[in-house]
């Protein structure tokens, strides 16, 4: 398990897992890795097939991605009525940089704005594109990039942990 902060160096942990068994990597238990006040991405690699569930201490979690895509769809993005949507885009390729853009669409399919470009300079790093959504927006988003990316959306109402949802972008 390798952790990639938004800035700074990466660090890793390893664990042996028997067939059908599991291991829980808990960020707060490992001394110094990741560092305190860490936010970023993680990549797990194994010699055999694995599956990964990601949970936060609060009331949200999602599945890890097995593959990235150069086109990812988010059906639900909100920046209205007290809602905020974090959009975490991770370079899932290993090469860098990743250049891309995020486009927003109203429910009738029309474009909301002209899109916002982004760049991820290093492999497996992530950026948060939540602030790219237009104020008052409620619709969908599509991320396109020149390398495969994995995208998670985190919806929060009034900054409340109980009113937070997290889902995976749909690779397309």
């Amino acid at each position: 398990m390798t952790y990639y902060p938004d800035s700074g160096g990466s660090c890793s942990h390893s664990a042996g897992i028997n067939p059908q068994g599991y291991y829980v990597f808990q960020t707060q238990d490992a001394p110094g890795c990741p560092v305190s006040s860490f936010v970023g991405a993680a990549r797990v690699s194994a010699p055999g097939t694995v599956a990964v569930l990601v949970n936060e201490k609060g009331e949200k979690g999602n599945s890890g991605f097995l593959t990235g895509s150069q086109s990812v769809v988010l059906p639900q993005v909100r920046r209205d009525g007290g809602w905020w949507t974090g959009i975490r885009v991770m370079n899932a390729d290993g090469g860098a940089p990743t250049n891309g853009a995020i486009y927003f669409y109203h429910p009738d399919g029309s474009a909301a704005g002209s899109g916002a470009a982004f760049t991820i300079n290093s492999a497996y790093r992530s950026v948060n594109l939540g602030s790219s959504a237009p104020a008052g927006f409620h619709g969908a988003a599509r991320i396109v990039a020149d390398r495969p990316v994995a995208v998670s959306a985190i919806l929060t109402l009034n900054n409340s942990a109980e009113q937070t949802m997290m889902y995976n972008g749909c690779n397309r």
Partner: protein
Amino acid sequence: MNTKAAFIRRRWPIVVTLLTLLIVALPIRAAVRVQRPITYDGGRINQEYLYGEELQASTHKGVDFSYGLGTSVYAVADGTVVDLYETSQNGQGTGFGNFVLIRHDRRHWDRITQQNAYVYSIYAHLSYNSVGPSVGQFVSAGTWIAEVDNTGSSTGNHLHLQICLHPQSDRTLSTLDSENTSRNPELWLQPFNYGSANTGAVVGKITDSNGNPIGDRYIWGLSKPPGSGGTNYSFSRTYAYTWTNPDDILVENWGTTDVLAGTYHLTVRNESGSYIYEDLGWRTVRAGETTYVGLYPVFLPDIMENYYGWNSSIVVRNNSDSKTAQVNTTFFWENGEVRTQKTDYIAPRGTVVVDFPGTCYYCRGSAIVAASEDVAVVVEHTNGTRYNNYNGISATGLDPGWGQTGAAIYVPLTKYDFDGKSSRLYILNTGPAATDVTITSYYSNGSQADSTPCPNLAPAARCDLRPPAPAAGRYAVRISAGQPLAVVVAEEQHSDPNVIYKVQNPFASGATVGFAPQVKRQWQGEYSTLAVQNLGG
């Protein structure tokens, strides 16, 4: 609330639901595969006159089995003989000639009348005085009922099989045939399996830019074993008339079975094949399974309406840049019976929130979104205080990046009374046949902790349960079945299952790498855990 009280509180609406269903209906399900009416030679279908095709300005409402005089005919499912005729001589009579009409025990959702309907099967052109059972007699699936002949409007020895739906139980053949009741038998029959010729079904939809089905298009590229009567398959054809009924859940406009397992390049052409309207790309057909082409079913294992304050919203995004998507959403009770259905249209790149069609209290079950374009779906639950969500689960073969339906599903981490929380699995059978489901839990070292069955899960039926656990703790889980499953995992308060913290999507497959775009440690009070399950062994 203590555990027992919570259990009772959780279960009583289900008891009410079951009692209601016992009063009003026999099981009403999505299309469930039935036996072939002919066993000789595997019961091959005549491949040159399929459902929905035209002959003399009339639509073929069934399929034919072209076999010799005297070939035995069997009931395709349990039911009661409600009408028959057997006094036409060979080569004589009109219409169906000698026939048997069976009303089956199973019921099915009827999209036309938006209510529960009886399933009928018609067996036509039978031999003079050959019908075994009498009117009113119960016959079980596989019961011999008559012999093949050439009576009525027929040009050669064959059996005509027709599947019909009607809300009333008193239909005779003449009333059924005069009404718009037929369905495509190819989507009801078990795929042909003769020797090594293992086959599957293909169901599709060809639409215009407004999301409406287009008739008289020819789908080229599939391959089948030879049909009965020396016939050979050339192509499939979209239903020529708007009154040619599709399946009531999938709402396709073409569908066929007995397709040889393999990978095919499909194109939409004119009848001669000289003009290509659309390139459908490559599709893989697997034995015993259904492949979707231009049709995008998404399975939603948990949907709530006024369920202890919880309600669900289904957010559907049309991923097409150019075509409107027709979206048919069917809501199911836990036992796989249809509750209701609605249709929406979504503009290219647009989004729709599928709202609930009526007031239903203490209602919980599943849903299937069947769209004419590729869609991305997210389900949101809220009780006004808490919110959680999950991704819709696709069966199209288009990889969303985290998993799809599968006959084996892996959950890297579940809880049983761990920190006051427990997991709950919502397991939906997405296949066309009932299946036994086994849920096995594992300790962190990979040794088996416990196992429990969810037996005989009907198509579109759902099993919800906490993972088997010998004691409070955390476990990895593997869910296996004989049909593809769609599964989500909720985390709830152990003592009160109506306090739902989160819902997550497990995996139908694994990989040697995995990605987590957002991970935290002491970031605004949050930290992350990443549970990794080894799927090998």
